[in-house]
């Protein structure tokens, strides 16, 4: 036990010897965890390290197979999150549980024993507005949830917990859905809350933000504690990374000199409508060369998804022209895009990038089942499929018991390896990668980056769309900034000014309205 008798603050939560088994995996294997009153305690670990499981046990969603939990000194056995909240524990999950058509107040009150019959909205609105103001959670209690941004919805979830009297907040990867500015707001709120005596468990796999917000950090690796409750001042980023993955991770990406070839992709004044019929792309003009990576930075919802869809045939352009290797392709189908060797690593890995209930092999052949050697006229050669799938599984180290395993059983990192393996197997000329590392752990991120850079070295033109500016700057040769459907800036990655890009991303760059920045030629 790493009790620090020198720290006078009493414990809010104490978990001892927690064991939680799932079929074939021990998600938590004798885990100890403690949270002091008034601290932000980061729970750091790779995907699948057991962080969320441990906190779901604490929140009463799972019952531990063994172990003991004390909350504010009292032993507890929670049967459900309702018991947990009664004891002062509230968890905010990655996926929110809000009713979109109801107001903030109604969502906060939902499930509470009072008000019983009549909803005196006005009174509760004021009460909730007051609670929000005290904790610096800017949100209008009368707004309907569907009108709110993701950041605001998260604040509603936190309000729900606070209104129910939570003195311990568990946040499961709260920044995964937030823009940088929203994350900064969240951190400010958390700071003021702990100053008032609330305690926070902050689940994350991002080293930088853990260093920014946490007082102490517990690192988990493969269901066990790798380091318990170290004060953040005594850690280094490299040291934490080492604890997380068990081996030193190269934080810098080795990049070969750019050897850009001819233009592969050229877009001229491309316009497209979004799902709700509003303009999503407004006059996009850009070029990407063979052997070059163009990073597209921007806050989510500024047209990046539509840009990827237009390039891969999933969305029609309403104006403008797109050529790939000189062939006009502005109104084509996904099938034609595949035929032109445009690869796509989609944003939504489980909904679009894979069919969850089909096997790994079936998922690996999605782009090549039409062609030899997998296809023989109108049949599929199952032997060739097996060989093809096994080769990709080995080459790309997709951790699955066999190629017959259903894709939904793979972890996020393995799923992304599967998608990349499939796309790279088509020998793409243009690779469109959207948020390829979101939600992945350090090791998997490095793999994804390496694979993308290998494609670049092989002569593919790559478009990397990411909200993670550090990633864009680390991987791309040039950086384009998108804001409200326009390209508002284009920089060489080497001499890009992060502050300026940040400003452009948030609309602070006074965009030269209507005039897209033209693509400078590549030296």
């Amino acid at each position, binding site marked *: 036990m790493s009790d620090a008798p020198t720290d006078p603050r009493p414990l809010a939560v104490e978990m001892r010897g927690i064991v939680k*088994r*799932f*079929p*074939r*995996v021990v998600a938590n294997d004798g885990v100890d965890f403690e949270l002091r009153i008034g601290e932000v305690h980061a729970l750091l670990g790779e995907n699948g390290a057991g962080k969320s499981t441990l906190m779901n046990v604490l929140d009463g969603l*799972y*019952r*531990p*197979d*063994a*172990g*003991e939990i004390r909350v504010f000194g009292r*032993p507890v*056995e929670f*049967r459900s999150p309702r018991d947990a909240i009664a004891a002062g524990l509230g968890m905010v999950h990655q996926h929110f549980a809000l009713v979109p058509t109801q107001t903030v107040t109604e969502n906060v009150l939902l499930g509470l024993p009072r008000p019983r019959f009549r909803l005196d909205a006005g009174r509760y609105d004021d009460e909730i507005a007051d609670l929000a103001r005290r904790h610096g959670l800017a949100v209008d209690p009368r707004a309907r949830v569907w009108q709110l941004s993701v950041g605001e919805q998260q604040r509603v979830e936190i309000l729900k917990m606070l209104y129910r009297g939570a003195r311990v907040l568990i946040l499961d990867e709260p920044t995964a859905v937030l823009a940088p500015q929203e994350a900064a707001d969240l951190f400010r709120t958390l700071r003021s809350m702990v100053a008032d005596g609330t305690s926070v468990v902050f689940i994350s796999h991002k080293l930088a933000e853990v260093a920014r917000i946490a007082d102490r950090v517990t690192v988990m690796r493969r269901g066990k504690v790798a380091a318990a409750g170290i004060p953040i001042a005594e850690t280094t980023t490299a040291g934490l990374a080492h604890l997380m993955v068990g081996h030193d991770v190269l934080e810098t990406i080795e990049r070969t000199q750019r050897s850009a070839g001819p233009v592969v992709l050229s877009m001229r004044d491309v316009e497209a409508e979004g799902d709700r019929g509003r303009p999503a792309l407004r006059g996009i003009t850009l070029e990407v060369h063979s052997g070059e990576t163009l990073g597209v930075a921007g806050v989510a919802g500024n047209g990046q998804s539509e840009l990827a869809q237009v390039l*891969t*045939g*999933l969305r029609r352009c309403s104006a403008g022209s797109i050529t790939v290797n000189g062939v006009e392709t502005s109104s084509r*189908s*996904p*099938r*034609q*895009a*595949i035929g032109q060797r445009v690869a*796509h690593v*989609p944003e*939504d890995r489980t*909904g*679009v*990038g*894979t*069919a*969850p*209930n*089909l096997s790994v092999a*079936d998922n690996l*052949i*999605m*782009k090549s*089942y*039409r062609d030899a050697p997998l*296809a023989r006229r*109108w*049949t*599929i050669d*199952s032997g060739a499929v097996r060989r093809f799938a096994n080769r990709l599984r080995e080459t790309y180290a997709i951790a699955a018991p066999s190629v017959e395993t259903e894709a939904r*059983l793979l972890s996020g990192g393995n799923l992304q390896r599967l998608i990349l393996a499939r796309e790279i197997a088509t020998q793409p000329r243009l690779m469109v990668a959207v948020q390829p590392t979101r939600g992945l752990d350090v090791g998997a991120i490095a793999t994804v980056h390496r694979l993308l850079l290998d494609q670049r070295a092989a002569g593919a033109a790559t478009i990397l769309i990411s909200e993670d500016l550090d990633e864009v700057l680390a991987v791309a040769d040039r950086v384009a900034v998108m804001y409200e459907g326009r390209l508002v800036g284009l920089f060489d990655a080497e001499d890009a000014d992060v502050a300026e890009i940040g400003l452009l991303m948030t609309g602070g760059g006074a965009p030269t309205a209507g005039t897209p920045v033209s693509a400078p030629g590549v030296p």
Partner: protein
Amino acid sequence: MTATAPTRRPARTAGRLRWSLRLERRLEVPRWLPVATTVGAVVAALVISGIVLWIAGGDPIAIFVHIARSSFGSLGVLSDTLVKATPLILTGLACALAFRMRLWNIGAEGQFLMGAWGASAVVLIPIVPAGAPSIVTIPVMMVAGMAAGAAYGAIPGLLKAVRGVNEIIVTLMLNYIAFLWLSYWVFGPWSEGGFQLSRPFPPEAWLPRLSDAAEAVPAFAGLTVHLGLVFGLVAAVLVRFFLFRSRRGYEVRLIGDSPRAARYAGIDVTRNTVLVFAMSGALAGLAGMSEVAGVVHRLQQAISPGYGFTAIIVAYIAKLHPYGVVVASIAFGALILAGREIQPSGIPAMIQGIILFSLIASEVFLRYRILFERRDA
């Protein structure tokens, strides 16, 4: 797997000790489990049916023995069971194929009737001159039955693919239209002497039966099982091959699991919707052809006791697997046959219903682990 009680366990206090049941989502489904739950559900259904029979004053054991004997007890009744199973195999395959792509074709009944009508038209219009040999008449009837069923199935397929119309409602209503269409022909143009049935088909339009070979093999005497069974078995093999070995079948499975992933993979969902609906209709249409040419030998209003609807249950029990459809169809064929021995209606339908409900309920075991826990209240 045991749900170990937490370490804290105070002394029991009388009356406050409770068992509780908890569901926990399964991360992985072992291969044997779907088979085990299906068998378990059928056994549970028989137990529940037995209790109902016992309450009604019957002897459940005697009744089940009677059912088994009157459906599998001799070569003769086994043959009758297979005759009942034949249309179920083909309509069951029709449903299983469509359901694989999450196309809820509940119109197999209508497509069955249209297939029967199309096949009859070959004889009754006639399309093939009277007196043409079997070798000509029967293949033309097959093509006509399948084409009629396919065309009828393509209607909801087109409506869904082009205009996004809900296929459940369309197929359900088309069943009524098919029934009335058939009624028009058997009451009107094809009526024989004012009765709601057509004149009998000439023997050239009959599917061969095992009893036809009784002169060579005396044991076949009286066995009514006909060539339609072979159609069903061959169709099961072909549907399996289509789903798991063909490019188009791969597309069907991909669309069924994730339409968005299918679109991303460049698959034309619209065209596959029409195609699969037409194929599904063709299978059901072939069932109709096999029934008029193999069993009733004429077109009449009452040619289906709801095969197209029972097919939905059959496809579900089979977990949409073609070979499973064959097994489930034989079981249901037995139930239909033996049911008539027990009671004209009522009990057999009840047993079918309980089996269906048990199977639906058993899905919970596939999705969740059930944990019993002892708690101190």
